């Protein structure tokens, strides 16, 4: 994609301008997307993306530029333009490249570059669609999306790093829409992994569609949700978005280094209930948020973030390490060559506990069981977060009574982590996209079912 000779000349040039550190991120990505509407193929698209990102660091200041042109002259022009206010005598001499072979931890048996397999993908989505329609006569429409990407990256830096990697991503989403003639509601189920289309061999398309259809019908019959502070049991799997928003983002050195996280000075402190242990693990085989190396070329790892409620690690990228003094955790990630890397999550989840789900529900006098959560967001500086309940039920006197709709949960990270009083043993992971300063990246969230003793439920009953 870019010869080491060209990379060498550009990095040498960047250092000659006085940079302390220089790095090239070269990316070529194949992409295929198809969508279905009920029984018909709605769109089929594909594309090739290519570009090079140049990062230079001058005394902690980041200069970043990118281009689609893989020529030394163009890259040097960008370096020159970026350094216009920072040029100084050279401080660092580049180290010779030492090419390192990346250990491929994740399979890509049916890669996009070999065969887009559009027929098979269409059949997968249509099978899911038919199953969703079979969920009930009130299912009026389905929308299927299938995405496959193959990302080739090469990294060169002034410390002699030269490493290349290939990442295969597959994802499918089925949305079912239900209508009773006046009201409409939807349900959604998705799957994804860091692997080729062979993922479909392990997934039952009909089960995917049936789940989307079931959820749409439940939501169509849901009543407005009561509001107020109350206990909430959050289901396993995508329920882990609560930890992602309430805590994960606040542990990224992108926020910590700027003291823009409420946890920036809490290392070693008891920030959560003793039942809470959490990790961010980039090594899980074929998991959606896994990587072989991060986007700064460091091998990924399993990072214990919280152990028995105590903060044990941040998520640390190169610059975060320089600014905070904590060791890098292989967490430098970016959407594409258009973004400088930043510390980001990979597969982040609360570890299994030993409480029983039935006991959680039985312990509630008046509250909510949020079996499936939607997305959310957080303000790292204040820790305020919110997320939507995609499928929820009203619970009274220890019994699940009826489905509710229109519920949002809000709180702050420090508060909710201490309100998690029960953690069950049914750990499950779910895939999602996380948007932040370095773009939208694949991340996994997860948890066993947990009980939060008090959280504000925004409803409209």
């Amino acid at each position, binding site marked *: 994609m870019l010869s080491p000779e060209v990379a060498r000349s550009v990095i040498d040039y960047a250092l000659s301008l006085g940079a302390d550190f220089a790095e090239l991120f070269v990316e070529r990505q194949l992409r295929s997307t198809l969508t279905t509407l009920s029984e018909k193929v709605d*769109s089929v698209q594909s594309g090739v993306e290519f570009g090079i990102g140049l990062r230079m660091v001058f005394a902690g200041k980041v200069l970043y530029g990118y281009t689609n042109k893989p020529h030394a002259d163009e890259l040097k022009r960008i370096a020159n333009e970026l350094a216009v*206010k920072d040029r100084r005598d050279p401080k660092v001499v580049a180290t010779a490249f030492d090419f390192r072979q990346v250990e491929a931890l994740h399979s890509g048996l049916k890669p996009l570059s070999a065969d887009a397999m559009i027929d098979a993908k269409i059949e997968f989505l249509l099978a899911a669609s038919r199953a969703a329609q079979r969920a009930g006569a009130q299912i009026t429409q389905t929308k299927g999306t299938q995405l496959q990407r193959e990302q080739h990256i090469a990294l060169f830096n002034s410390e002699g790093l030269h490493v290349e990697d290939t990442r295969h991503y597959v994802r499918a989403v089925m949305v079912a829409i239900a209508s009773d003639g006046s009201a409409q509601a939807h349900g959604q189920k998705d799957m994804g992994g860091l692997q080729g289309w062979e993922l479909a061999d392990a997934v039952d398309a009909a089960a995917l569609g049936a789940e989307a259809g079931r959820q749409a019908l439940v939501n169509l019959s849901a009543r407005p949700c009561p509001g107020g502070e109350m206990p909430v049991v959050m289901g396993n799997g995508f329920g882990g978005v609560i930890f992602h928003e309430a805590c994960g983002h606040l542990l990224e050195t992108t926020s910590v280094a700027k003291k*823009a996280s409420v946890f920036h000075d809490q290392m070693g402190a008891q920030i959560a209930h003793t039942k809470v242990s959490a990790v961010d693990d980039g090594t899980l085989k074929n998991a959606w948020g896994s990587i072989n190396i991060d986007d700064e070329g460091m091998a990924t790892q399993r990072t214990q973030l919280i152990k028995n409620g105590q903060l044990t690690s941040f998520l640390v990228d190169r610059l975060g390490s320089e600014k905070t003094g904590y060791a890098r955790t292989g967490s430098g990630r970016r959407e594409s060559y258009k973004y400088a890397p930043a510390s980001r999550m990979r597969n982040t989840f609360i570890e299994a506990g030993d409480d029983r789900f039935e006991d959680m529900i039985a312990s509630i006098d008046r509250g909510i069981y949020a079996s499936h959560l939607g997305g959310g967001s957080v303000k790292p500086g204040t820790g305020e977060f919110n997320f939507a309940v995609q499928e929820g039920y009203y619970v009274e006197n220890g019994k699940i009574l009826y489905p509710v709709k229109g519920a949002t949960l809000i709180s702050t990270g420090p508060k909710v982590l201490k309100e998690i009083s029960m953690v069950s043993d049914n750990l499950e992971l779910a895939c999602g996209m996380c948007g932040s300063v370095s773009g939208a990246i694949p991340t996994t969230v997860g948890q066993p079912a947990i009980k939060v003793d008090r959280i504000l439920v925004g409803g409209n009953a």
Partner: protein
Amino acid sequence: MSTQQIAEKVLHWVTQQNAEADLVMQTSQSLTLKALDGRLDEHSVNSSFIVGLRVVSDGQVGMASSEAVDDESLKFMVGQALINARFQAPQQHERIPQISGQERAEEPSLLPEDDTDIDAKINFIVGIEQELLAREGIRNVPYNALSDVTYTQALFNSYGRHTEQQARRIMAYAYPLAENNGQTAMAPGVMAGRHFLELNAEQIVTTAYDDSRALLAGGPIQSGQYDVIFAPNTQAELLGAFSLMWSGKAAMDQVNPMRDKLGQAVFDRRLNFVDQPRNISGLGYEAFDAEGFCTAPVTLVEHGVLKTLAHNSATAAYFDVANTAHAQRSAKAALSVGLHQLHLLAGDASPDQLHEGCVFEVTQLDGLHSGTKPISGDFSCGASGYLWRNGERVQSVRGVTVAGNLYQMFNQVVTVGNQMLWNDSRSSCMAPIRFADLSVTGQ
């Protein structure tokens, strides 16, 4: 190679395959500056190009894109688009429009001459950060930036249509973190324009500081039903989350609840929504849509009655109605529909009348992407803002949620403001509305 040459080459190859096509080409150059601790912390300079091809072959549509413009990459893109087309269900209504002629958006204010140098821009953003840091109770300003983007959007088709619009957007923002006794709060100051001189550092600082400090003292209000006014940014964001209701494409896909309501009273009769693509005061100005049609004002709702949905040529043909020139397509996406610059026309209520009695003014909405259900109209989001009583701001509010149903809410109108206001990004211009009886959950 110029965009014209790329287009001629690609369209020639497509024609050789007995197909027709159009090409979207997007070019941009951008500068981003961020400050930290009184100095420049990030400096980013970027240039990008992407071409998106849509082919129609035997009634089937396929798409492909490329960021590389060498012959091999472009031929690969054409081949991919033609292969993709074979898999799509035959489209009875989606065709490459048979329109021709070359037109450029000539409005000079889209790309004003501006010789502001990099030093002035660096000083601007560093100055904002320093000014905020110097004020009482500000711990830091973790999020701030000045971004300056010049972009060109061009379209070429097999029938000789070529449209092009070049424009610039410059924006600055700052989010100071206010702190007092362990409590923290954050609110933005944002400005956008087409010329550097349109940005006012003092206004950004004052807005961000005042709102952050005010929120710091805020807390939840009693749960209940409240009259609510959404500030210009939040009203635009909320309507943006429900933009599906205007979409002819969503109607064609049977997921738009407005599909069968043409000519019916859908909202309060005091509401008039108009899309104004060519209001040059806005940063969403678009002279052409993504199929090369010239844009014009379109009345969507008049006195509460739905007059039309937004259409591209395919959805218009499907419903056998007029094309409203709302085709939307990025290089990587399929043909869709989108508004340009939504306007909500002014009513007759003065600001004092809007704030009579007790009303909750929502200045920030959190979780819109997940807390809104465009198909059902339900929404439930985190909110902050101010409680007003008899024309006075009496309390800062945070830690609450506001919930309702958007389609019902537009029939719960108490009054419509007599001034139209742009949101910070100047993408929509709307009169504020006071809505009755939205559910607020607090303490």
